[in-house]
């Protein structure tokens, strides 16, 4: 394969058929160019869709108590279901393997006051796990910890927007905030990928808040993330199971769709994931078909070259060239043309994506890119297609009878 004479001959043949080689090479380059571009576009769409869900962990499940719609077990319809700390403990205790992070949410709102500045903000009283479920990013200080919760400390983590609203140029960390007649110390500042509203929350320990509100044990919502190794199917099974058990616990009719509302991110996520996977397949299919046109082109040019070189091949055979050596020559030429032009097309596509891709960031389409694995697969496809393209002409060449060397002219 690394034979100087062999390569010399391949180069000679290419040089002799420059235009034809270029045109067919171009069709292969074009095919791979489109394939890479299509794959990058699908990646871009995927990124776009995924970023829509990025605000919360993709494996999160939100459980909301609501109002019963069916009478059951002696209760009338229209009963409000209330979650308490016990529900949380129950889930924690029974689904140790299924749950990754879990937190209650107890919601209130407050007038927060710092010096002369005031504002009305929603409070989320939560557990430390909340940070991972909501993907809250701490930009100063810290988030809640277990100590805050067990000791029911009056500490608060505030959003970036609140800092802008109340603190002007001051560093809020360590400052105190007046909220509904209590004084909370600010221990952290966060930001969130969601939106401005997300950055106007105040996080406090759930235990502290419950004590301030007459020692209630009520919670408004349970948030959890399921075991990240789960498939979508497993995740859906798990949330179904949760629903069944919570309904039983709260004496809700098993068919009551309204009393406990479970929002499983997996559902939406699996739809998007199916959609983009489908798109990937379609684009690979289309790209390969275009590539096929290029391969047929290469095969075509090689058949012509063989025809032109019939006499030369006859001479070589008369001088002792084995059929395998002739086949090698033709196939190597084919692989060479496909690989070089294919890599050219690929680099061009990647260059284009690299130059333009970063600028594109819309909700539905962001940061189109190709993975290294895609590139490697494309390369393998190129080499294989080069061999395929060379196969028919090579067999044709191998069947050239040496007599033609004598009879030609």
């Amino acid at each position, binding site marked *: 394969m690394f034979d*100087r*004479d062999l390569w010399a001959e391949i180069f*000679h043949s290419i040089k*002799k058929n420059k235009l034809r080689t270029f045109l067919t090479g171009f069709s292969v380059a074009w095919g791979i160019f489109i394939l890479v571009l299509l794959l990058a576009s699908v990646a871009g769409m995927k990124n776009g869709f995924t970023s829509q869900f990025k605000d919360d962990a993709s494996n999160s499940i939100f459980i909301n108590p609501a109002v019963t719609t069916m009478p059951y077990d002696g209760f009338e319809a229209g009963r409000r279901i209330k979650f308490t700390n016990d529900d949380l403990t129950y889930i924690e205790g029974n689904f140790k393997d299924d749950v990754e992070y879990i937190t209650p949410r107890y919601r209130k709102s407050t007038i927060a006051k710092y010096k002369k500045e005031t504002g009305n903000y929603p409070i989320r009283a939560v557990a430390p796990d909340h940070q991972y479920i909501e993907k809250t990013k701490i930009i100063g200080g810290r988030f809640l910890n277990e100590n805050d919760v067990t000791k029911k400390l009056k500490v608060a983590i505030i959003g970036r927007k609140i800092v802008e609203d109340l603190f002007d140029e001051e560093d809020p960390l360590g400052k105190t905030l007046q909220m509904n007649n209590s004084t909370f110390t600010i221990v952290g500042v966060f930001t969130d990928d969601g939106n401005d509203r997300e950055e106007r929350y105040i996080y406090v320990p759930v235990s502290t808040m419950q004590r301030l509100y007459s020692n209630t044990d009520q919670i408004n919502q349970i948030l959890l993330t399921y075991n990240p190794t789960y498939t979508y199917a497993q995740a859906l099974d798990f949330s179904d199971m949760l629903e069944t058990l919570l309904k039983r616990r709260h004496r809700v009719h098993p068919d009551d769709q309204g009393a406990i509302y479970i929002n499983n991110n997996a559902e939406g996520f699996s739809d998007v994931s199916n959609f983009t996977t489908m798109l990937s397949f379609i684009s690979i299919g289309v790209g390969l078909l275009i590539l096929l046109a290029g391969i047929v082109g290469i095969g075509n040019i090689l058949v012509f070259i063989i025809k032109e070189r019939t*006499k*030369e091949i006859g*001479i*070589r*055979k*008369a*001088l*002792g*060239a*084995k*059929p*395998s*050596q002739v086949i090698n020559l033709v196939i190597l030429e084919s692989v060479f043309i496909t690989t070089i032009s294919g890599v050219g097309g690929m680099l061009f596509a990647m260059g284009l994506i690299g130059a333009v891709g970063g600028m594109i960031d819309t909700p539905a389409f962001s940061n189109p890119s190709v993975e290294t694995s895609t590139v490697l697969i494309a390369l393998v496809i190129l080499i294989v297609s080069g061999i395929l393209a060379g196969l028919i002409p090579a067999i044709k060449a*191998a069947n050239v*009878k*040496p*007599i033609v*060397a*004598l009879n*030609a*002219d």
Partner: protein
Amino acid sequence: MIQIQQLHKSYPIGKDKLHVLKGIDLHIKEGEFVSIMGSSGSGKSTLLNIVGLLDGHDGGTYTLNGQVIENLNEKKAAVLRNKFLGFVFQSFNLISYKTALENVALPLYYKGVPRKERLEIALEYLDKVGLKDWAKHLPNELSGGQKQRVAIARALVTKPKVVLADEPTGALDSTTTHSVMELLKEINDEGMTVFVITHEEEVAAQTKRIVRLKDGVIISDTATANAKKK
């Protein structure tokens, strides 16, 4: 060296068969200088093709250098050609984009000789045919006689048992014809078996044995004056 008995060959033409060789018996010993004469259609080219392992035969036996030739596949035929036979063609059949030196070295490439070594050997043979100074020239920069001498060097470079020449002077004028025949004689004098096909009496006259072919059978087989001279 070459032993042919009752050799038959026919080509299908539509439903019919064209019987080209009708029982040839020919025995060529090592070191002979034989010419096959005949008009076109006499079967002389077919005979050369079969002797040169470029074509198979239908009946009879053909033994080359003690080896019975039958049912050869392309690969075996290629190896035997490379090992035992050197070809000189009427139209030279040099590869146009290779220099004289590379053309001569080509059979050695198929023999598997390393590049440096085969270029050395090729140069040696070019020197032998008097074209050492033309080694770097492409075929279209050479005259007809020079091309044929390059082709002869190429035929000799693998040290074959037999050199097969198909109308080696067919495309040459009388002066160059003479020099090419002189070269073939020299080669023969060194002990090489040379097998020439021609339709020119003067060319045949310079060989040592003339076999005349007509309609697929041998009509005469005579030694020439050259043979007795030696």
